[in-house]
């Protein structure tokens, strides 16, 4: 593990019970401190399973994962404090207001009192939600839900933020705000791991990306380097299609 590696995944395998085919098959990769790392792939490639193992949601079948030098098998609870997760689903209670949701999540991360209020105010102002704190989440637009979902993952100032398709289904303005904010967040030293189907967005955002397909890493490197290595491709999306094929996935 090099000095600036914050996440080290070694020969990671995950096979769900009843399935013969592994969802994650011998994946090894490093994520460096302070980078925006894109984990890209078609549906069913194994991105969400990899992220879920990183978050401690599933135990790996084989292999090891170290986060900031801590083992995912032994030091799961400590790792949870370092990571902020922004799931693909809007993981909030629809009948609670934005403030009630954030207050609950903040308290779960050990924040309280003035500090909690300041954190809520800070992130909701940045993401344009400060006027909507008293509204129930089920009254929010898709873009607002995505943004509040993002705030919920950032409240405890995590050193690593894992985002699973954070801009899916949102309007251009909300997407632009989220992407801009993630850039700014990264500038403060926060490591970001990001999955998306929007390869143009990933190309702009990520310092490095890895393509996953059928549970395996098929290529990793910087977007520019990948395009350079494939002279017939002008964009990351073309590289992606070249490497993963055009067949439809489940």
């Amino acid at each position: 593990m090099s000095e600036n590696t914050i996440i080290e995944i070694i020969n990671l395998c995950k096979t769900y019970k009843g399935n013969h085919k592994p969802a994650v098959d011998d994946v090894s990769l490093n994520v460096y401190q302070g980078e925006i790392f894109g984990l890209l792939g078609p549906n069913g490639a194994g991105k969400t399973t990899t992220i879920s193992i990183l978050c401690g949601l599933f135990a790996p079948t084989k292999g090891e994962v170290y986060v900031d030098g801590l083992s995912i098998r032994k030091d799961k609870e400590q790792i949870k404090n370092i990571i902020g997760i922004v799931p693909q689903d809007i993981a909030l209670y629809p009948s609670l207001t934005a403030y009630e949701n954030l207050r609950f999540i903040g308290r779960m991360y050990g924040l309280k009192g003035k500090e909690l209020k300041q954190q809520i105010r800070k992130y909701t102002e940045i993401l344009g939600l400060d006027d909507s704190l008293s509204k129930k989440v089920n009254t929010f637009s898709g873009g607002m839900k995505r943004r509040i979902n993002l705030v919920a993952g950032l409240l405890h100032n995590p050193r690593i933020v894992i985002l699973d398709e954070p801009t899916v289904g949102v309007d251009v303005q909300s997407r632009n705000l989220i992407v801009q904010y993630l850039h700014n967040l990264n500038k403060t030293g926060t490591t970001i791991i990001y999955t998306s189907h929007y390869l143009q967005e990933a190309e702009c955002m990520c310092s490095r990306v890895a393509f996953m397909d059928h549970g395996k890493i098929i290529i990793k490197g910087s977007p520019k380097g990948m395009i350079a290595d494939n002279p017939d491709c002008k964009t990351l999306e073309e590289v992606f299609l070249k490497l993963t094929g055009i067949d439809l996935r489940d």
Partner: protein
Amino acid sequence: MNKFFASFVKEVLLLIRDKAGMLSLFIMPVILVFVMTIIEDTALNAIADKQIPMLYCNPENDSLGITIKKGLDETRAFTILEEVNGEKLNKASLQRFVAEGKYPVGIFIPQGATDSLKSNARKVVLKTFADIGLTSGDKADINGFDSVVIDIFYDPAVKNSLKAVVDGAIGQHSAVIVGKMVSKMYSDILSDFLPGDKKLNVNYPTMISINRQYASEPDNTIIPNSTQHNVPSWTLFAMFFIVIPLASSVIQEKDGGTYMRLVTMPKTYVTTFVGKMVVYFLVCMIQVAILFSMGIYIIPYTGIPGLQIGTHFDALLVVVMASSFAAVAFGVMMGSFCTSYQQATSIGVILIIILASMGGLWMPVYYMPKGIQHITAFSPLSWPLKSFYDLFLRNADLNVVFPNVFKTLLFGTGCFITAFAYKAIKKVK
């Protein structure tokens, strides 16, 4: 503590804002308990050992009517009513009420019946003496009896057994009073033949006494009335109905992604889970408080006896807490097994209905066929119900209800263990 409090507040807010959940937890049980208590009152009374209402009109208010009434009272088979809706009965109204089927039987003692009886008794005695040539100074006419007629009006629908009981009781008590009058008459007249101021005084000791005993061990079952059965039964049913909002809450967290967030937070899931359990546990306790209060204070306004909860409140609290624990644990287990809201509501509800009917919640166990009664002991809902019966009908204490409380707690613990074991197995998979 901060995490627990946050979870508790979150669950309370979620529950309060779930209008359908609130309806099924509080409003519907109130309606259910109220309606069931009223509609089952007639049915349960018909089966239970209940006094038969009897109209009684005794305008002369003398010995005969008083003795017969006292005798009927002592049978404990009748509730004797001398007025209806605040109006004193007369022969016509008594007959009308019975004819209308409002009362099964009515008795009318005519004016002057006691005097006629006394006169008849005197004539019998005087005639007896006259037949052997003894005449007293009394020159009363010893011929011509005015037979006293007591009218008994029956509803045509009344069974012959009831008629026999009423006829027998009246015949018996009339005979007693006639016997007493005749013997007094003999004493009075014979005293006329005694020298000086000597009086003949005949006393009847109790010559026959009845020794009523059971040929075998008596069945100590106390039959509950509608309130005593329906209020605790349907309260338990409502408590276990918590499976719907509770299992739904667990499933919605799984489906909505909040479960993922909770699991990925440090040392959080157990705390939030306990927070949820405590809220639903308190909901069950509040349900009991509301429904029992209704049984005590509202039900009596309908003319049905109110709920008597005994005097052992410590034991009652323990039974309620054990029942709440079991209901919540059952909800958690269903939430773990079911993968969708539809599954939880359909399977959960059907299971509760089966357990409730088996446990004697719908119909008291005592009225079920003997063979079925043995099966009821296996329903976890029957254990707290039996505890409530013990507390309410027998004023039992904690020692008496402990075995059923223990079984209830064991069931709850079993549900929790099953839920967690299933969850652990699924996580490994």
